[in-house]
């Protein structure tokens, strides 16, 4: 692997093949927990960590894993990793765990993770797989944070509320009031707001990508579902 390959892995995960905005995988947690930035960030980081560890483990074992046991092995590895993360969050970020609740164990069902294990980690070396996990996770995390920010500003008029759940007491001071005396906009806080917000983000990303790469072919959300052909 050359340096440009690593660069390509990064851009793929974060931008070209962004899980939330282009591949459209893992939308259930994406839509459900993004009512605030902090919730989105927490789930995004947990997902990123899962992706990195599962990609690395799968890649290390890739020569041993015959095709017939590959999928069950992935499921075992991913489920173990997620449960470990869940236990650690329960022990060390108790309040956050209370808020994110069921969505932490549900990281297991995020197709993006098994997708990366199958399409990337089982065919590439550990370092590249780790980087791919990081890049994909980062892309997902950025999407969660962006959607969380849009919904929190429109819905509550604040940013970073609840940061104390993640960072301890001093996090309380991080809350930014963007719109003072915001009456609360229900639509943004409820699931429809998540759908509308995500649609706007996807549209925005597509428009941007189309402008930046006017002369190149650009994968558009929902059409190019096959990830990283370039690397295979």
């Amino acid at each position, binding site marked *: 692997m050359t340096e440009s390959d690593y660069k390509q892995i990064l851009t793929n995960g974060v931008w070209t093949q962004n899980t939330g905005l282009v591949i459209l995988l893992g939308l259930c947690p994406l839509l459900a927990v993004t009512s605030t930035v902090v919730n989105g960030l927490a789930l995004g980081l947990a997902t990123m960590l899962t992706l990195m560890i599962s990609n690395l483990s799968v890649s290390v074992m890739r020569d041993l894993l015959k095709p017939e*046991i590959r999928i069950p092995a992935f499921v*075992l*590895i991913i489920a*173990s990793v997620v449960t470990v993360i869940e236990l650690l969050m329960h*022990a060390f970020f*108790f309040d956050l765990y209370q808020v994110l609740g069921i969505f932490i164990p549900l990281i297991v069902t995020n197709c993006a993770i098994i997708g990366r294990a199958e399409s990337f980690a089982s065919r590439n070396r550990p370092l590249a797989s780790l980087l791919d996990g990081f890049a994909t996770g980062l892309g997902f995390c950025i999407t969660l944070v962006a959607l969380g920010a849009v919904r929190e500003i429109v819905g509550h008029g604040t940013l970073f509320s609840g940061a104390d759940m993640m960072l301890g007491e001093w996090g309380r001071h991080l809350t930014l009031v963007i719109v003072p005396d915001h009456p609360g906009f*229900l639509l943004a806080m409820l699931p429809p707001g998540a759908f509308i917000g995500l649609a706007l983000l996807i549209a925005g990303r597509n428009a941007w990508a189309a402008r930046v790469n006017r002369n190149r072919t650009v994968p558009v959300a929902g059409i190019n579902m096959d990830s990283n052909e370039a690397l295979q």
Partner: protein
Amino acid sequence: MNTSLRAILKSGLLLGLIALLGTLLLATVNKLTHDRIIEQEERRVLRQLNEIVVASAYNNDLHKDVLEINDAAFSRQPVTVYRARMDGHDVALIMRVIAADGYNGNIHLLVGIDTDGTLLGVRVTSHRETPGLGDPIELRKSDWVLDFTGKRLDRPGTDGWAVKKNGGDFDQFTGATISPRAVVKAVHQTLQYFESHQQTLFAEATDRALEND
């Protein structure tokens, strides 16, 4: 042994090995985090309880001095009762009750009552009411729930134990009557239960305390 059988066995063993490794990892992490999780849970319960009965008002292990009521006429689910005592004298009870008729499922409440039947405080611990409409029952969203503090069964009286829309004493919210109505009803029923069972609740509290000693 033919080759395909060997391949199957090898794959099966490998899968088993991965499962074993995963189990080992989980068992280890579980062992390492178990105590801390229990401790965190206890701390959370104690923090909730101390919002209603201040820590200086009692000197027993409030979150461990627990009684469970199974009375179908009062609540379909068992109700946990925490007993606050000072030097062996009963100070207050905190009951973990459920208002089952919220707009969107159960509203979980903590209701604190002192020995003469006055409400020390009510808190909503979890609910799924509509954000922005029904959620002012949370103290984080509004101080509506503080209205209960100091109320008794006979103050405001039977008619007063309702939302204003129904001629009672308690405010409803714009666009949401069901959530506050459910909370008011549950607190009222808890006070009624407390009045008719006060002796047993406190007697049992004492019995239990003796057992513990």
